């Protein structure tokens, strides 16, 4: 595992709210290798955004973060980002310089009062060069590379003068300005139209080939996942319930939630007026949630007395394929719940 870039181990982000403890991220582990694209997929409220914000130490101040996020720089010793001072110098070096981020809403992600050029060169001047002219040159070059026409004129324009797609291109240029080793993309195309989404997705693939960075891609859109990533982590209620390569995910999903999700989405080109297989119930709120598997109330294969009592751990159930579900004996074994199961049956 020499080529590991980022190693997330048992990351937890808990938010104490008035209504109770919100376990936004509740013990997730995964690793990203150099040059690899990992997808983090899940519905709203599953904690995927909070997870990446915790990795960048951009979670709210009152959030309680634990676990480890080991970052392995190209040169130098690995650092545990969770242990860093959230406003300190080291994390600021990493942010933007080594790990960059793009966000969902290209409109609100830019300050409307400053020019595009100002906001891009700012990042360059923090991490790469003090020289204004050089920073400007780098920025113009980048704007050209993300496919913006007339880049030097764009530099002096304000965000509201650009269309949504152009803004997202500028955002990507800004994120890539310091040639980060990891790009975190948080739903970067959700707010865009399909044809523009196709442009941006293609652009990101091309740029990855060119720059060779790793990408952590967050989305709720399985179509985007299928197109963009190599490995996928499926999140539900703050936990990763399945982790595998993208082909197995779509063809051999192991977790009931994943397979139900894949079956429930209408697929283009498969016109049929038959009913979709829907998942019953609603996505619960992760506040003061009861013990056991989060998917239990909606699961068609749930084992009462077991699934609603002990959280299933994420365990390898096939080569390179991990799932957190008791239908696999490996999981029950790892959780050491064989006696519990007996108890559960006994009480029924």
């Amino acid at each position, binding site marked *: 595992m020499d080529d590991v870039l980022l190693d997330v181990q048992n990351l937890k982000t808990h938010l104490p709210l008035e209504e109770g403890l919100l376990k936004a991220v509740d013990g997730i582990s995964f690793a990203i290798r150099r040059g690899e694209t990992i997808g983090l997929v899940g519905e*709203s409220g599953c904690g995927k955004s909070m997870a990446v914000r915790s990795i960048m130490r951009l979670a709210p101040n009152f959030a309680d973060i634990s676990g480890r996020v080991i970052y392995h720089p190209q040169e130098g010793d690995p650092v545990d980002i969770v242990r860093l001072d959230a406003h300190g110098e080291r994390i600021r070096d990493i942010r933007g310089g080594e790990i960059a981020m793009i966000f969902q809403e290209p409109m609100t992600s830019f300050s409307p009062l400053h020019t595009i050029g100002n906001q891009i060169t700012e990042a360059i001047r923090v991490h790469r060069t003090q020289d204004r002219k050089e920073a400007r040159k780098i920025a113009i070059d980048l704007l050209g590379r993300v496919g913006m026409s007339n880049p030097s004129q764009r530099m002096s324009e304000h965000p509201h003068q650009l269309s949504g797609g152009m803004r997202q291109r500028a955002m990507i240029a800004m994120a890539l300005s310091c040639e980060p080793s990891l790009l975190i993309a948080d739903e970067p195309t959700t707010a865009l139209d399909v044809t523009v989404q196709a442009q941006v997705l*293609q652009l990101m693939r091309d740029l990855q080939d060119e720059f060779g960075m790793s990408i952590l891609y967050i989305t*709720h859109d399985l*179509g985007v996942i*299928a*197109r963009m990533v190599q490995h996928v982590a499926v999140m539900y209620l703050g936990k990763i319930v399945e982790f595998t390569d*993208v082909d197995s995910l779509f063809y051999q999903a192991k977790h009931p939630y994943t397979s139900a999700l894949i079956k429930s*989405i209408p697929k283009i080109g498969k016109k049929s007026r038959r009913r*979709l297989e829907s*998942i019953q119930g609603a996505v619960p709120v992760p506040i003061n949630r009861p013990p056991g598997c989060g998917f239990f109330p909606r699961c068609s294969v749930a084992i009462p007395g077991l699934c609603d009592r002990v959280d299933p751990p994420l365990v390898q159930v096939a080569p390179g394929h991990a799932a957190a579900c008791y239908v696999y004996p490996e999981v029950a074994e790892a959780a050491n719940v064989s006696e519990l199961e007996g108890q559960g049956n006994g009480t029924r």
Partner: protein
Amino acid sequence: MERDDVILRVKSLKKYFPIEKGLLRRTVGHVKAVDDVSFEISKGEVLGLVGESGCGKTTLGRCILRAIDPTSGQVILRTHEDDTVDITRLDKKQLRALRKEMQLVFQDPFSSLSPRMTVLDIIGEPLWAQGVRGKALESQVKELASLVGLNTGHLNRYPNAFSGGQRQRIGIARALATNPNLIVADEPVSALDVSIQAQILNLLQDLQEKLGLTYLFIAHDLSVVEHIADRVAVMYVGKIIELAETEKLYLTPQHPYTEALLSAVPKPDPRLQEAQIILSGEVANPADPPSGCYFHPRCKYAEDRCKQETPALREVLPGHYVSCHFAEELELEGVSL
């Protein structure tokens, strides 16, 4: 294509929003949000209306319901009494009386339900407007609630006690309350979680089959539209550029924009990631559209003629309407399986 079971006939509908400028607020131009749109929907049919943001699909839906007044054109609705009425010519009073014939399902399940009313009052509002009161109202609402799969014991609750999917059921029940001839569903599932979308789509489909409903189904998600619609109309910058039976449109599109649109949809299958058609540029500005065919600056098949002549929507194959000069010559690809 004169059919006698037509519920809705839209003829040359236009909605122009004026652009005002200068010292005296003179009108210097128009945003042609809906620009000469014509189509019809038969009883029991689902017509899908797809397009990207700003193409005018929502405005079109609102004009048909006369939530906003169209600039010109006709919207002819067949009522329960088998009369045909041009909605654009009704005065306020007549319009209110006709409201029961057509209803809207909203996109946002949060903003479309008043936080100050109980679910009973929300679902019952169209009935209340018809003068139904008291016990009769309550029993009808109960019936509607169970029809859409809501717990009838929860009708005295407020919307804040319901999840997004349940709220959308409430909105659907409200739309069904007066047994309307036409339901306009404006992106009814796009605000919902992926795992909830299927529930609501299934519900809409079941209701349609059970009650013989007629939908104008507006959405930007082509896979959702394909799933539910009998025929699909594609809009681009205020105009319908292609209209055909769903299967034909998806398998053998005749307009280059439709082709590109279909190709751009990310397929949820890693083994089906063929090269996409990447359109250059972005959707034209409806306030200042290009000359000729609005799509020509982005069209890889465009020729000189496309820059000068605006193509009309014409029937190139039976029931397949396209506005492209070269529809017959082009060999376009649809979604392949």
